[in-house]
């Protein structure tokens, strides 16, 4: 079996690739890997949903295959497609060969039979364009499959995914059923744009990544930005947490905390002051109204 040995093992391995998981994340990842179930990850934007998939792939030294969902995504883009142009080109090029083959036949039906014998040459893997899902299933070694922003896809696509996630096999009419060589570790992320169907939810285990606890966030900042002073990191996290308490349109997430810390490092600032916050606020707040609100409650945020 691929993967992890215990919850502690998950924690260690993820930390070794610079991702500090909470206990809950570690437990769910371990269970998913052990029972070969997909994980449905929810959480505010920037809380590290996609990063989790990347970290799992890196910690187990696996390839990561990513499928970005959007409205109108269909099987041809997600699973496979026949390369008609290539088939056509090949047919043109070997036209004479085909003529040779059927020249000896006496009737049309005999000629058709002869060509039919060669059908495999045209409907073979050579002409099959594998898209992310097929790549994940046919890969020779286990992979991590990340299906990003599943909530953006259409309900039809969601239904199609069910078959894949349930049995880990796909049927290609011309070639038959392909079973997965290795069951991939699957992560689906959702931003809650719409609710997922019950059937999909039932096949997955659910994980909600919330804003990290203060202590955890401090550790993450120190890990991601090794040069940062401990005092500044503490100050930074405290401030971010206070900003999160404000009634903002988009609350800053862990990724914003890290961006901000990086910005301060570049500017060589070692102490937070109202001026510093005011100058660098665009890193934390992505909306004009939010910026305004933080500026107005500056003294509350920086205590």
């Amino acid at each position: 079996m691929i993967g992890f040995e215990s919850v502690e093992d998950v924690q260690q391995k993820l930390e070794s690739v610079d991702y500090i998981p909470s206990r809950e994340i570690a437990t769910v990842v371990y269970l998913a890997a052990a029972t070969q179930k997909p994980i449905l990850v929810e959480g505010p934007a920037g809380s590290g949903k996609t990063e989790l998939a990347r970290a799992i792939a890196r910690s187990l030294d696996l390839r990561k295959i990513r499928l970005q969902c959007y409205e109108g995504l269909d099987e041809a883009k997600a699973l496979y497609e026949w390369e008609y142009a290539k088939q056509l080109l090949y047919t043109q090029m070997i036209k004479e060969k085909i003529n040779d083959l059927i020249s000896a036949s006496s009737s049309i039906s005999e000629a058709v039979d002869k060509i039919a014998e060669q059908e495999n040459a045209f409907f073979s893997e050579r002409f099959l364009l594998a898209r992310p899902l097929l790549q994940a299933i046919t890969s020779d070694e286990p992979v991590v499959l990340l299906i990003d922003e599943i909530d953006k896809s259409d309900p039809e696509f969601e239904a199609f995914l069910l078959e894949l996630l349930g049995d880990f096999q796909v049927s290609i009419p011309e070639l038959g059923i392909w079973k997965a060589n290795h069951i991939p570790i699957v992560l689906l992320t959702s931003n809650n744009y719409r609710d997922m169907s019950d059937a999909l939810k039932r096949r997955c285990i659910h994980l909600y990544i919330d804003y990290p606890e203060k202590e955890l966030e401090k550790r993450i900042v120190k890990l991601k930005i090794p040069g940062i002073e401990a005092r500044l990191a503490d100050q930074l996290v405290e401030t971010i947490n206070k900003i999160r308490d404000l009634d903002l349109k988009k609350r800053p997430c862990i990724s914003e905390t890290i961006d901000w810390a990086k910005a301060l490092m570049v500017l060589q600032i070692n102490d937070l002051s109202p001026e510093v916050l005011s100058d660098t606020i665009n890193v934390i707040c992505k909306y004009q109204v939010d910026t305004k609100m933080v500026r107005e409650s500056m003294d509350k945020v920086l205590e």
Partner: protein
Amino acid sequence: MLNLILNFVSACRTSDLRVSTAEVIDSVRQLELVNVLDEDQFRSTLRANFAKSRREQRDFDRMYDLFFHDMRPDAELDPDNTRKNEMREALEQMRQETSDDEISQAIFDFLAGDPIPYLKEIQRLETQAEEASKALKSNLSQLSSRLEVMLRINQTRNRLLQFQGDNQSEGLPGKNQGMASHMLERLEVANRMLTQDTRPHNDGLKQINTYDKQYSGLGERPFSNLTEIEIEQMRTVIDQLVRKMKDIMSRRYASRNKGKLDVKKTLRTAQRYLGIPIEIRYRQKPLRKSKIVTLCDVSGSVWSAARFMLNMIYSMQDCFSDVKSFAFVSGPTNITDIFEKHEVNKAIEKVITDTDINFDAHTDYGEMLTQFHRDHLNLLSKKTTLIIVGDARTNYHNPCEQLLDEMRSKCRRVIWLNPEPEQFWGTGDSEMSTYKAYCHEVRPCRNLNQLIYFIEDLVF
């Protein structure tokens, strides 16, 4: 262990968490893999399997705390079960003394460590439907049954205190004392459950406060303050706008034909011309046209905003695959026909003159939701966007928010447009904060700019 989990599952189910058998099997299998003595792991395992979305997590957390924290002390208090039996006897005695209505029985069951009947009772309270419209409507019946449960809890508390006192006078302090206070604690838990907030987390909620100030002056005037002349001006502006948006849409339809070459289709048409590809076919992406169901409050001030919205939606009808609309004061009336047969402005007049909407009635959102849920639920599908226009002022009637929750699970998105300024939401009889928990998106919509911003979002 298995029994414990199964009990927990049935407790979850009574409080409306949908836990399937497959999920129970999964969780039990997974519990074998983790260290169950570590609460984080134990809890995460159950939570990952039983609560499959952020919305359900609060329900789960509440049940978990109740089941594994508030109700658990039984096992710790008496390892040899003697206390438990004593307690059960005492409770049994008290139970016989009290009247045997369901609520008291449920409370005693709760005290004895079986929360399920009591949970059912609470669940019944929350989903209690208002009886068919009477002359005088209110949500009193829900409040009064809640009150009834509280009275029963008080009765039981008195009885327990008496029990505590009895024992003291008989000179049996110590263990009975502890037992009584333990039961009192538990009664507090029951009381707390009755009064707590049961609204789900709604992190995905999109709350729009900002908008482009495209039109100054007229664009910023609240719909409710428009004069006759301004309404005429407004119509011209809307007409222009609709034309502009239609242009953009048709350009979009045109450009989609310039997609990649569709070899399959080109070959198929080439068959007709001896295999020579005369007609080139492109891959056409069918644009997703959404279905729309609108519910418009037509009472008083709200109507002024609702009609402009209807005006725009119907002018752009070809951008959607299906538009159904309902107007309501207390019950929903289907006005789709009127809008399909008549020109928009005429239709708006007709809604007021030709329908049987009772404009004198009190607005009753609960009643509207109940009727819509009963008669028109089949209109909602995963492709439908449900738009509700209203101030959510229920005149203190029962808001019936569970119905909205159910409707949410049937459709793609629920958007609530509120013509009141945001600072008034949730004040007085406004149930906006209640309904908000069940919407995907809420936005104030009181002037043209906000409306335009919304329509653009909806169409593009």
